[in-house]
């Protein structure tokens, strides 16, 4: 049967089947998106509490004690509460916000729409992936509400701290919930990844060759492959860790450990094995977050520059190069871990190698903006902001990737500054760009542009005020995950910087309320979109109605004749040519 003229019957579904237990990729995408936004609110709030403590260490506050009677017993934040904030903030943001919103949210929503398909290859698996994800969210959040407290291991859960339930409060039940949530999340990610790869490889509409794919689709494909190779390693490591915790095995726990004056009955394990397994997953994970952000930012940048992306081919090749290299750089997290120093040399080389394709992408973004005719929409501003943040965060990676320079900087705020800019703020900017850009396609209404721009100015300035000075804190030696830096005489002179960062963080956090209000009010009261293609973009989703119905494209699937970057082609009437326009079919002037 010709799939392009597939029989398309609309049978009306009830509310629950249509909006809740749906197998429609758009509904699942929005479910991922809204769930991840809720997780972001939690994760962001936790970071505000961290900044409160770091700005004014152990400041007595009866008000806080009223709100958090256990965490602020005696009106001062408890150290274990601070470490649990660190752990939960990192875990929620890396997994439950960024991984979920970029691949789960945008991936599900955009893949069928941008490749001209009616749905994902396995709609049921897709729905299952979301429900398992939601379950993992509930499990991780429940760790915040148990009496023994949330886990203290950091998002990296280094063994043996994570492997020994008695190593601290929260390391028993809290840590078990952490491992369970991460295992569920990994399973959910695997289901999604299988779906994305199959869909992009097999369900592209007629004429849509691989080298005509939008960069968003390339990035989602590469990301899904990375996820499929990386998440099983994390899942396996989590299972081994569980065996160590409750099964009496010793994968990560060596002999001779004395915990709370009591010798432990373990022998033969190796703590660095956890780090190798974790970072073998963890470094590709960084790219699982940043690659879709790069793809989306590239497409949106080109659209609002009214100019083709510079060097599409190099963009694709560099993404592939980054994804391959991402599997051989994990040791740069372990330069001073006690790993053989010869490995440090190898990982320095591979790490600086991965900077080359990243630099290529940066040049190409600059080449796209050069000579452009930029439309400064909120989406366009966030796409430009993405480039700025990625460059700032990426360059500080050179210091950390050079093993000898990393000795002083490892586990300091220099690292915190680096990874926040490059893999939290940059993807956040791309996600905001994506939300402002695809909002009309999602809901058939526009977000308020003025509020969007105000949101951008506060977020751009705020993010730099928060994260750039952290480099300086790190140079000064401030360790990360420290409850009270003023305990150290050598860190006391830097305390004004901590106050500045905390105040900036509160401004940055508050500015996100503008976004949330704009987003949720616009769903119901935004200006209605009167055309299918309000931004004059070229990709296939803009040929579908706003919002597209079930099956996306009506009777016939679109056919593709060109790449998605025909902006400002000389001699053409319009400054954009959608992918569905046949070559030679547009009026010349």
């Amino acid at each position, binding site marked *: 049967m010709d799939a392009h003229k597939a029989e398309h019957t609309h049978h009306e579904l009830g509310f629950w089947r249509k909006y809740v237990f749906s197998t429609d990729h758009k509904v699942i995408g929005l479910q991922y998106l809204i769930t991840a936004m809720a997780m972001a609110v939690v994760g962001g709030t936790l970071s505000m509490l961290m900044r409160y403590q770091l700005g004014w260490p152990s400041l007595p506050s009866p008000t806080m004690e009223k709100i958090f009677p256990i965490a602020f017993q005696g009106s001062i934040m408890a150290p274990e509460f601070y470490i649990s904030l660190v752990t939960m903030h990192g875990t929620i943001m890396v997994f439950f916000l960024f991984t979920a919103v970029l691949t789960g949210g945008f991936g599900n929503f955009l893949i069928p729409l941008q490749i001209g398909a009616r749905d994902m290859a396995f709609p049921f698996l897709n729905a299952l992936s979301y429900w398992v994800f939601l379950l993992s969210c509930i499990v991780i959040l429940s760790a915040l509400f148990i009496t023994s407290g949330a886990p203290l291991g950091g998002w990296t859960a*280094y063994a043996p701290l994570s492997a020994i339930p008695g190593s601290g409060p929260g390391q028993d039940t809290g840590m078990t919930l952490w491992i369970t949530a991460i295992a569920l999340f990994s399973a959910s990610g695997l289901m999604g990844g299988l779906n994305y790869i199959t869909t992009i490889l097999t369900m592209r509409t007629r004429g849509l060759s691989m080298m005509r794919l939008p960069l968003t689709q390339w990035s989602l494909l590469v990301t899904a492959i990375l996820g499929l190779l990386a998440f099983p390693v994390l899942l396996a490591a989590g299972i081994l860790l569980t065996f160590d915790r409750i099964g009496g095995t010793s994968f990560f726990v060596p002999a001779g450990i004395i915990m709370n004056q009591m010798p432990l009955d373990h022998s033969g394990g190796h703590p660095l094995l956890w780090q190798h397994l974790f970072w073998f997953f963890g470094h590709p994970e960084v790219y699982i977050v940043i690659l879709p952000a790069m793809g989306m930012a590239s497409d949106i940048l080109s659209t609002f520059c009214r100019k083709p992306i510079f060097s599409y081919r190099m963009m694709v090749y560099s993404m592939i190069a980054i994804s391959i290299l991402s599997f051989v750089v994990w040791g740069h997290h372990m330069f001073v871990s006690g790993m053989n120093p010869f490995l440090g040399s190898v990982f320095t080389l591979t790490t600086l190698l991965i900077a080359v394709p990243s630099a290529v992408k940066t040049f190409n973004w600059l080449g796209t903006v050069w000579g452009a005719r930029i439309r400064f929409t909120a989406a366009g501003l966030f796409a430009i902001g993405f480039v700025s943040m990625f460059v700032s965060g990426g360059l500080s990676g050179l210091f950390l990737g050079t093993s000898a320079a990393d000795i002083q900087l490892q586990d300091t705020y220099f690292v915190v500054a680096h990874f926040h800019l490059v893999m939290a703020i940059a993807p956040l900017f791309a996600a905001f760009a994506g939300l402002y850009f695809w909002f009309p396609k999602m809901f058939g209404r526009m977000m308020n542009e003025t509020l969007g721009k105000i949101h951008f100015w506060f977020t751009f300035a705020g993010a*730099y005020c928060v994260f750039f000075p952290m480099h300086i804190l790190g140079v000064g030696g401030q360790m990360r995950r420290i409850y009270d830096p003023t305990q150290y005489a050598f860190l006391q002179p830097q305390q004004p910087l901590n106050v500045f960062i905390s105040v900036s963080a509160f401004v940055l956090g508050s500015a996100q309320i503008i976004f949330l209000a704009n987003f949720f009010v616009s769903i119901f009261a935004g200006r209605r979109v009167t055309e299918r293609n309000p931004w004059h973009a070229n990709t296939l989703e803009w040929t579908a109605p706003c919002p597209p119905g079930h099956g996306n494209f009506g009777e016939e699937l679109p056919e593709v004749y060109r790449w998605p970057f025909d902006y400002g082609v000389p001699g053409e009437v319009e400054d954009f040519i959608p992918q569905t326009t046949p070559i030679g079919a547009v009026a010349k002037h």
Partner: protein
Amino acid sequence: MADGAGPGRVTLSGAVLAALILILIIASLYLFIAKPYWFPTLASVHGQSIDSLFMAVLVVSGIAFVLVQGALGFFVARYGENGRERAAYWHDNPRAEAFLLIGTAVILTILVFMGQRVWASIYFVDAPADALVVEVTGEQFQWNFHYAGPDGAFGRTDTKLITSTNNIGLDRTDPAAKDDVTIINEMHFPMGRPVKVRLRSKDVIHSFFLPNLRVKQDAVPGLSIEVWFTPNRAGAYEIACAELCGLGHYRMKGALTVDESQQAFDTWLRQKAAEQQQ
């Protein structure tokens, strides 16, 4: 229609964004050149090469930062949409791309070699034979230091002997242990003499961080990790734990004194040994 030939319009958004990027560039240049906050005072020989390497990477990344952010700021200010003309139409330039790719690769390769020279000088060179050896054992949440004493031989340790007063399980019946000094959260080195630190942990991973000496090395349970360095500036410094080790991580702090002379160090060690005899 002169497509992309002339300048675009200077839009309000473009100008504001360019201004913010300019402020970013000026502020970062100020922070990294005027150095209102900077590294803790340097107090070791190898630390000089780490600091110089940092400066070399700073020059390279600083130039790239200013050029790229500056170009981005200039482009957003200049190339706003003016409603009349189109963007310049070009979407690749293989020669420029090849030039930038090879240029980046060459610069990064140079950085790799510069970095590896320093790395090799720290990790691939054995400590001199006259180095002072100190055994360091991390535990939640304190640092245990073990000096061999005048005989230069460490007494036997055994985890079975660990008690609340014998933190590292030193076997005091071992003749070599007679003059050993064990001490918590306090450490001395003589200035100018190489020091070899042997790191262990009793429970979870800790990281032995001497900010002024540019030393950081994890203490991993089950492993014995050695690192050596030469303190070259007398004074009082701090010892920190740099790896998250539990709720008391922030207070796993020690005091380091680099003594003016071997003599001053010996006096301190004798005094500590005498305290232990009591």
